[in-house]
């Protein structure tokens, strides 16, 4: 890789020849402010916050897109650049509804941080304090408030470039520009997949998830309700970020302690049903493999992926596993197995999950998700961020929380379940079980490293009892589309495919703690977070789903066998094609 020598604020450094001024400055230890820049996703030089002085250039340059050259002299802090940034910030603030004290992003808003850094005491234009909210809430997962939008276009870029959906974009122009969907229809009327990636990259409070915490508080306060909570694997890898822990810290123990202190009657782990999923889906896979069933079998635990499949690639519905997602299985098991075990009326059991995911808010009300007495399997689901808010509300001292264990009734799980949260984790977990069942032998190595890592599409093949089993893993819908197109075109053949809605898997889910642009652009948060899960798995005694005693017990006492009739009643579901533009269908009927 070739390099060039440049000077940053008088200091000589050597940086890659294809670097930008922003990256060169960062390498020299200087942070140039950005608002719209998202590396590899949104590189448009639009917000003008990164304007920097380069000797000899005509005017200031946008550091995020301006390429370095040999001998370039960069001044990141000249008075001219500072003034330009401050004026631009003032203009942006003049058109941004100032509701900082009560805004959900208070203290975590990138615009607020810059305003503080640049000493914005006075905004001489517009009427930011008198602006009215401009709310759009037509989906179960998202609230958009365009009065806070700074038009950085990061949400548009992830939706188009990472998630292959492109359902949002700028409408109108000039000062009237606003982010919306085609023909200014509601988001619920277009083919949104509820993945929430847009929320993750929004620098302000313009995009936020629908808040379900008040319903959880209500349930917790209701003496008649037996409230249980299940946590997703990915939550323990990220919850600490909300409280200042370094990225990639595994806070499982504290998370459980916090949940106990919130007043849940049962603090359980969705990892248990993740193991259950492996048993069910593994059985399904073996059955298809040995009986000429539809292959490849594609995983079904990601509701964002399911939404994508039903709307964009309905021809692959027959490939999807009939298993519910671990969350939905959790709800069903709580209201059947667990309620029976404790002698509770299922109606009195209120099931909550903490998920890294916003699509889960859509999933809990899908058709065919009420296995017990017509009750919804799941009552509520909250994101990692919402849990953090609940914890903060109680005034708990995070740093003083002890390490506690999950409640034993539904708290024993394998390392295979833990790695569900990373892209490739479900595949690896399934392989550990499927390979042992098919070969009848114990696996020498449990680490299927070929399916690990943050590449968008991963492929591997394994010789299993004489059959070359070919697998593929994709995360993020742009990669899923590429993979599916390849399969459709007959260019590749697989037996088993794992697809996760969010790039990198659930650790990068739409409900995870939001990292600002200046972290996302320079730190590989996905690898760090996934690392927490793989580390936990490596240290666990039980690393295979089928050897967990609790799982064995659930089958022997309750479900019978994997794939049994009872298992199908509780733990399986079906899918159907969904029109991309239901609003248009309705219009056609009207006219």
């Amino acid at each position, binding site marked *: 890789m070739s390099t060039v020598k440049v000077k940053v604020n008088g200091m000589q450094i050597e940086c890659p020849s294809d670097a930008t001024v922003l990256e060169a400055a960062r390498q020299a230890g200087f942070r140039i402010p950005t608002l719209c820049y998202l590396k590899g996703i949104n590189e448009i030089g639009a917000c003008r916050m990164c*304007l920097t002085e380069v000797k000899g250039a005509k005017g200031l340059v946008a550091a995020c897109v301006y390429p370095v050259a040999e001998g370039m002299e960069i001044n990141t802090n000249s008075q001219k650049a500072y003034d330009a940034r401050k*004026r631009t910030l003032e*203009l942006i603030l003049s058109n941004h509804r100032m509701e900082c004290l009560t805004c959900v992003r208070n203290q975590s808003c990138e615009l607020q941080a810059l305003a503080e850094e640049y000493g914005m005491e006075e905004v001489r234009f517009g009427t930011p304090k008198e602006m009215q909210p401009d709310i759009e809430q037509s989906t179960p997962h998202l609230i958009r408030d365009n009065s806070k939008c*700074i038009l950085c276009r990061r949400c548009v870029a992830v939706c188009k470039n990472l998630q292959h959906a492109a359902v949002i974009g*700028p409408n109108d122009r*000039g000062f009237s520009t606003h982010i919306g969907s085609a023909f200014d229809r509601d988001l619920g009327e277009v083919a949104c997949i509820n993945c929430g990636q847009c929320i993750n990259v929004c620098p302000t409070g313009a995009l936020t998830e629908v808040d379900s915490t008040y319903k959880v508080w209500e349930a917790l306060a209701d003496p008649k309700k037996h409230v249980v909570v299940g946590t997703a694997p990915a939550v323990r890898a990220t919850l600490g970020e909300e409280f200042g822990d370094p990225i990639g810290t595994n806070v499982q123990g504290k998370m459980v302690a916090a949940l106990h202190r919130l007043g849940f009657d049962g603090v359980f782990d969705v990892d248990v049903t993740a193991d259950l999923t492996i048993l069910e889906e593994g059985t399904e896979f073996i059955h298809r493999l040995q009986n000429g069933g539809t292959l490849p079998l594609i995983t079904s635990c990601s509701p964002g992926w399911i939404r994508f499949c039903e709307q964009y690639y309905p021809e692959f519905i027959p490939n999807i596993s009939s298993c519910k997602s671990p969350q939905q299985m959790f709800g069903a098991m709580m209201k059947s197995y667990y309620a029976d075990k404790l002698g509770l009326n299922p109606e009195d059991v209120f099931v909550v999950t903490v998920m890294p995911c916003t699509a889960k808010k859509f999933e809990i009300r899908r058709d065919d998700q009420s296995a017990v007495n017509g009750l919804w399997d799941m009552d509520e689901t909250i994101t990692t961020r919402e849990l953090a808010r609940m914890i903060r509300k109680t005034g708990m001292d995070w740093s003083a929380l002890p390490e506690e264990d999950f409640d034993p009734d539904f708290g024993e799980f394998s390392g295979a379940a833990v790695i569900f949260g990373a892209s490739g984790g479900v595949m690896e977990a399934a392989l550990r079980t499927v390979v042992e069942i098919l070969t009848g032998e114990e696996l020498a190595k449990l680490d299927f490293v070929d399916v690990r890592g943050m590449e968008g599409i991963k492929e591997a093949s394994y010789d299993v009892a004489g059959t070359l089993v070919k697998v593929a893993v994709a995360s993020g819908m742009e990669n899923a589309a590429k993979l599916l197109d390849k399969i459709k075109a007959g260019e590749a053949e697989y037996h088993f495919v794992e697809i996760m809605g969010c790039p990198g898997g659930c650790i990068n889910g739409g409900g995870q703690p939001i990292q600002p642009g200046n972290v996302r652009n320079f730190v590989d948060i996905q690898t760090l977070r996934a690392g927490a899960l793989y580390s936990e798995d490596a240290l666990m005694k039980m690393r295979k789903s089928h050897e967990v005693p609790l799982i064995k017990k659930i089958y022997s006492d309750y479900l019978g066998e994997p794939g049994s009739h009872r298992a199908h009643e509780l733990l399986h579901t079906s899918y159907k094609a969904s029109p991309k533009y239901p609003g248009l269908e309705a219009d056609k009927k009207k006219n």
Partner: protein
Amino acid sequence: MNFVRSHVLVCGGTGCTASKSPEIIAEFNTQLKNCGLDSEVRVVQTGCFGLCALGPIVVVYPEGTYYAQIKVEDVKTIVEEHLLKGRIVQDLLFKEADAHGVEQSLNNTDFYLKQHRIALRNCGVINPEEIDEAIAFDAYKALGTCLTEKTPQEVIEIITESGLRGRGGAGFPTGIKWKFAAASPGPVKYVCCNADEGDPGAFMDRSVLEGDPHAVLEAMAIAGYAIGASQGYIYIRAEYPLAVKRLEIAIAQAKEYGVIGKNILGTGFDFDLEIRLGAGAFVCGEETALMTSIEGHRGEPRPRPPFPAVKGLFQKPTILNNVETYANIAWIINHGPAAFNCMGTEKSKGTKVFALGGKIKNTGLVEIPMGTTLREVVEDIGGGCPDGKKFKAAQTGGPSGGCIPASLIDTPLDYESMAAIGSIIGSGGLIVMDEDNCIVDIAKFFLQFTMDESCGKCSPCRIGTKRMYEILDKITQGKGTLEDLDILEELALHVKENSLCGLGQTAPNPVLSTLRYFRDEYEAHVVDKKCPAGVCKGLVEYKILSDKCIGCTACARVCPVDAISGKVKEVHSIDPSLCIKCGSCIAACKFGAIIVE
């Protein structure tokens, strides 16, 4: 026996078309048939003659008689008197022709004397819908020369030596732009033509496309040869349906003749052309926004580098030139670069087409050598301000340009001189203002345009132009302060220096320029709360003069808001709180008793 002895040329530009020139042509054909002259006299529809103030224009050759403001009813007279009997119809003449009207060459009229039509050479001369006529006037001769006698490098050298600079406004040396693109690796490259012409009041490109489309087609093919491209796109605003139609006809005819398409003139060189329509966005006249629009995306500019000559349309090396720039290319090839660079100034060579508009007698299109002074344009060519009003300023470059005050009327019109005084040549729009124009109102008008047309991508332009406009609006309503002027200037400089593209970078120019030369007028608005020109409604009052009013009640009767009160034969008065300053009363008063102050 072919004895067509007279050609009657009728202007078919959009302006004259709107004034019924097609009907005039039809009437000529009818009348000529009635008089049995239809095989001797040919009626030809041409492009724009330039003297749009006096359209529809009809020119009769071989005499060169220039009839102006012709109505359909006049046709019979022209046919019977002039074409049949040889008697020029004096009443219908363009008034500057001499007594005979015959001897006076068109070129000697004040309007045309100082002009040197190169880009407009065929406008008003040929029928743009007949490729043979274009060929008769040398169309595609230069292309043949380039393909058979010159290497691509030689073509670029000729253009560079001519000194031709981009006529769309930026003034970048055309030869150098082609050189960069030629040096970029192929094999796929593109040639684009910017026919979006968004400046209000500008119609130079429109007239070229309506009057001589083959000039542009030929030049694009030459450009393709020079840089190594085989595909061109003409991006034309959809609001020019006549130009689009003429272009489509021209392209079809050119393809039929094989001068556009595969194996042009049998030389093995391929060059194909497509038209792409704009959709009403001024910003799509910006280079990278135009390309983004052709690619099918929302027309927003992209940061540079990379520059289009390296990575442009579809990420391939691309050149984008303005219509007028292209209109000069073939002429330069045919006549040699020296014929072009002998005109103009040291750094601004050749001629430039200006669209004269506003408070000037001879509105229309003029093509003059670079370096002609503003005074010559306004007083000699333009005929001065009508109604004896005093010249106040001229706005060049439209919404991206600055104003030239009367004190600088001897400024030469070239790139350097304009830049020195804070204006730009721009695309060629030249709006003349007189003492009755309020300069603050003019600045507000232009800013409203750029504010509305801002694409919205970058913060300084999107929000800055709006905030600037709010301040200007405040000022014109009499609510401004001196501090507002300072803030306005600060904002203007910020938007100019920090916007992503040329729209934002030039939008503050009218404001900065008028603040520089007419600060006293701004101060009158904010300090004295007066509009000296009597335009800003918030600052003027309509008053009835007691010594002139005879109480005829004419004004009260036409007032749409009943703001005028008074009894018959008694002095009337206007209630300023109700008055909407529409001016109906002034128009109705026969005694000059109502004034604006």
